[in-house]
C-alpha cells in the first residue's frame, strides 16, 4: 500500500498506463553560425505557439487561462532576450541557451515561499520542455487518444498534459510529485476524475498492465491487491457513480416541491463560457450575468458591438430560458484603471454601479443599446444594480427609452418589450419595495451586499468577518418583506446572492415564497434534488418559525439540523 495526498475524490480501479517522457540530453558545444541558432530558436517559438493554441482550442474553459499564461511566457521579452543573448554572447546552441534561461527562471520561482508562485515554476518547465522538443524536432508524448480505460501513473502531469487528457478513457491518475494545490490536482477536481499525488516514487513500483486500486479521498493506492479487495473497491466506486448519476438524471427535470410549488433555478455567470457550464448543470435560466468582465482587464471601454457579441453568445446558449443581465456594477471593490475613478473613503457607500451609470450616461447608454439589440436573440431581461430609490429607477428607465428611440431612428433591430428589474441589495430598496414594485417587472435580492449594508459589516474586513452573517434575523425579515411586497404587486421575486445556494437556507426561502434562486453551477443539481424532497406547505411553517427567532445563532442551529 502506498500513501500519498488525496487530490481529487472518488475511487478508481483499473489497469496501469505508465506515462514517461524521455530524458533529454543536451549537447552544448560552441557554435559558429549564431544567426542559424537564433533562427532555430524563433522557429521553435512559433511552432510551440501553434501547438499551444491548438491544445487551447480543444480543451476545457478552466484550462484555457493557463494556456493563455503559457502563450504569454512565449512572448516574454526576458525569456526571448535572455536566450538570444546567451546564443550571441556565449556562442551556445539554441538548446543550451534555452535550458540555461529556463533553469534560471525555474530556480527563482521554486525558491519562493508563496505556494502559488512555486507552482508557476511548473508552467515555465512545461513551456520550456515543449520548446526544447520542438528545437530537437521531437514529439512530446501525450494522453489525447487512449485505446482502453486506464489509470495514468506518471512522475508529474504538466498543464498541457492534463489539458489534452482523453477524458473518456482516463479512470484516474496518480503521480510521484505534487500537492493539493498543484495544477494537476486542481484539474483533476475540475474534470471530476479521482487522483492521488505526492506518492514520491510510485512510478518505480508499477509496470504497464498492473492492476491499481486507489481512493482519491484518502490518498491510498494499492498495487495488484487480492481479488476480494478489488471487488470491494469496485462496489464502492459503483455506489459513488450511482449517486452522481442520480443527480445527473435531474438535469432536465423541473424544480418542484412535493406539493407542486415550482421554483426556477438559475445560474450566476460572468462570461459566455460560464453559460455553457450553467447549461451542462441543468440551469433553468441565468439569474445573474455580471457584465463587469467585459470592462475589466483592458485599457478602454468596450464598444456596443463587443458587448452585443458577448450578450448574444450567452442568449444563444440559453435558448428560450431567461437571461438576466445586470448592468455595469463597478466602483466599490471593483475598479477600472482607465476610468480614473477617484479614491474614496467609503467606496461601498460611494460612486458605484447605477450611480456611475446615471452620471456618465454615455457609458450606460452604450450598454443599454447593446442589451436592447441583443434582446432579439433570446429571452433577455435587464437588471439595475444598487438601486436605493424610485427616482433612480425612473432615471434609468428614461435613458433606456432614449436608447430605444435612437435605435428606432437608426433603423436597427432591437427588442422593444424587454422586462426590467432591479437588484434589491440596499436596505432602503427593501424598505420601499412596495413602491419600487410598481416601477419594475421583477426583483432579485442580492444578499451579499444586503447583509453588508443591513448590518453595517464590511465583508472584506477580516476582523469583523464573524459579524457577516446570512442568518441574521434582520436580513431574513427584509427578504420576507421584499418577497411579500413583490407578490402583492404581482411581480416575481428571485435571489442571486451567495445565500441562494446555501442548502441550509433553501428550505426557508422556499417557504418564504421566492420564485427563483440563482447560484453557482455546481449547486444547481443538489438544490433541485433538495427542493424536490421538500413540502412547500411545511416549509412555510418553518419559515414562520425562523422569522420568530431572536438570534442568528439560533436560526443557524435550527436550519442546519433541519437539512440533515
Amino acid at each position: 500500500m502506498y500513501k500519498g495526498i488525496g487530490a481529487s475524490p472518488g475511487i478508481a480501479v483499473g489497469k496501469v498506463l505508465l506515462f514517461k517522457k524521455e530524458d533529454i540530453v543536451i549537447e552544448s558545444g560552441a557554435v559558429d553560425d549564431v544567426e542559424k541558432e537564433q533562427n532555430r530558436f524563433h522557429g521553435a517559438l512559433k511552432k510551440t505557439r501553434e501547438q499551444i493554441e491548438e491544445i487551447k482550442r480543444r480543451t476545457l474553459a478552466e484550462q484555457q487561462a493557463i494556456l493563455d499564461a503559457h502563450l504569454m511566457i512565449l512572448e516574454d521579452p526576458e525569456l526571448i532576450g535572455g536566450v538570444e543573448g546567451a546564443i550571441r554572447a556565449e556562442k551556445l546552441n539554441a538548446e543550451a541557451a534555452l535550458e540555461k534561461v529556463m533553469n534560471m527562471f525555474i530556480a527563482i520561482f521554486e525558491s519562493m515561499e508563496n505556494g502559488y508562485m512555486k507552482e508557476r515554476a511548473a508552467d515555465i518547465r512545461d513551456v520550456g520542455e515543449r520548446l526544447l522538443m520542438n528545437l530537437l524536432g521531437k514529439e512530446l508524448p501525450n494522453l489525447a487518444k487512449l485505446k482502453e480505460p486506464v489509470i495514468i501513473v506518471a512522475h508529474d502531469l504538466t498543464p498541457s498534459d492534463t489539458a489534452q487528457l482523453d477524458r473518456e478513457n482516463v479512470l484516474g491518475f496518480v503521480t510521484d510529485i505534487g500537492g493539493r494545490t498543484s495544477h494537476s490536482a486542481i484539474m483533476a477536481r475540475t474534470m471530476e476524475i479521482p487522483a492521488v499525488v505526492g506518492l514520491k516514487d510510485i512510478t518505480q513500483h508499477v509496470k504497464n498492465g498492473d492492476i491499481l486500486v486507489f481512493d482519491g479521498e484518502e490518498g491510498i493506492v494499492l498495487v495488484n491487491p487480492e481479488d476480494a479487495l478489488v471487488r470491494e473497491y469496485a462496489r464502492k466506486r459503483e455506489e459513488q457513480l450511482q449517486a452522481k448519476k442520480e443527480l445527473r438524471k435531474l438535469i432536465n427535470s423541473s424544480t418542484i416541491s412535493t406539493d407542486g410549488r415550482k421554483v426556477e433555478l438559475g445560474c450566476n455567470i460572468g462570461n459566455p463560457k460560464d453559460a455553457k457550464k450553467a447549461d451542462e448543470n441543468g440551469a433553468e435560466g441565468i439569474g445573474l450575468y455580471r457584465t463587469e468582465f467585459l470592462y475589466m482587464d483592458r485599457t478602454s471601454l468596450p464598444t456596443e458591438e463587443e458587448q452585443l457579441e458577448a450578450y448574444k453568445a450567452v442568449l444563444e446558449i440559453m435558448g428560450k430560458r431567461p437571461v438576466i443581465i445586470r448592468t455595469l456594477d463597478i466602483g466599490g471593490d471593483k475598479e477600472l484603471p482607465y476610468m480614473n475613478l477617484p479614491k474614496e473613503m467609503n467606496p461601498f457607500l460611494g460612486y458605484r454601479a447605477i450611480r456611475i451609470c446615471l452620471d456618465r450616461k454615455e457609458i450606460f447608454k452604450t450598454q443599454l443599446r447593446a442589451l436592447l439589440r441583443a434582446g432579439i436573440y433570446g429571452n433577455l431581461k435587464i437588471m439595475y444594480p444598487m438601486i436605493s430609490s424610485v427616482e433612480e429607477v425612473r432615471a434609468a428607465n428614461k435613458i433606456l427609452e432614449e436608447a430605444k428611440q435612437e435605435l428606432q431612428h437608426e433603423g436597427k433591430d432591437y427588442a422593444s418589450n424587454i422586462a426590467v428589474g432591479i437588484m434589491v441589495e440596499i436596505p432602503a430598496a427593501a424598505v420601499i419595495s412596495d413602491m419600487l414594485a410598481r416601477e419594475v417587472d421583477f426583483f432579485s435580492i442580492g444578499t451579499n451586499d444586503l447583509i453588508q449594508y443591513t448590518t453595517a459589516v464590511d465583508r472584506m474586513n477580516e476582523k469583523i468577518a464573524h459579524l457577516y452573517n446570512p442568518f441574521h434575523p434582520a436580513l431574513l425579515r427584509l427578504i420576507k418583506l421584499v418577497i411579500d411586497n413583490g407578490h402583492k404587486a404581482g411581480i416575481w421575486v428571485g435571489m442571486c446572492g451567495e445565500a441562494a445556494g446555501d442548502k441550509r437556507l433553501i428550505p426557508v426561502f422556499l417557504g418564504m415564497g421566492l420564485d427563483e434562486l440563482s447560484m453557482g453551477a455546481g449547486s444547481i443539481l443538489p438544490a433541485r434534488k433538495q427542493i424536490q424532497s421538500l413540502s412547500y406547505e411545511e416549509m412555510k411553517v418553518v419559515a414562520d418559525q425562523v422569522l420568530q427567532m431572536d438570534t442568528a445563532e439560533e436560526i443557524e442551529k435550527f436550519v442546519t439540523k433541519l437539512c440533515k
Partner: protein
Amino acid sequence: MQKQEIIVKNETGLHARPAAMIVKIASRFQSNIIFAKEDHEANAKSMMGIMALGAAKGERIEIRIEGADEKEAMDAMISLFESNFGE
C-alpha cells in the same frame, strides 16, 4: 528619467493576473520600464520578470522609467497600482 516608489497594496501581490495587466499596459509605451525591489530589477514588459520579483502585499517597489513617453507611462503605472488591479 522618472522615479517613484509605491507600495503593493493588493491582497495577492504581483501574481499572474496583476503581472499580466502590468505587461499589457507597459507594452503600450516605448519607454523602458523597470521595477526594482531591493536589489532585484525586472522589466515591466516581462510577465516572468515581474512575477519573479515576488512582490507581496505591503512591499515597496521602485518604478524607474526612461524614454520618450516616460511621464505618461508613469501615470499609467501609478493608476494601475492604485486601482489594486481590480481586486
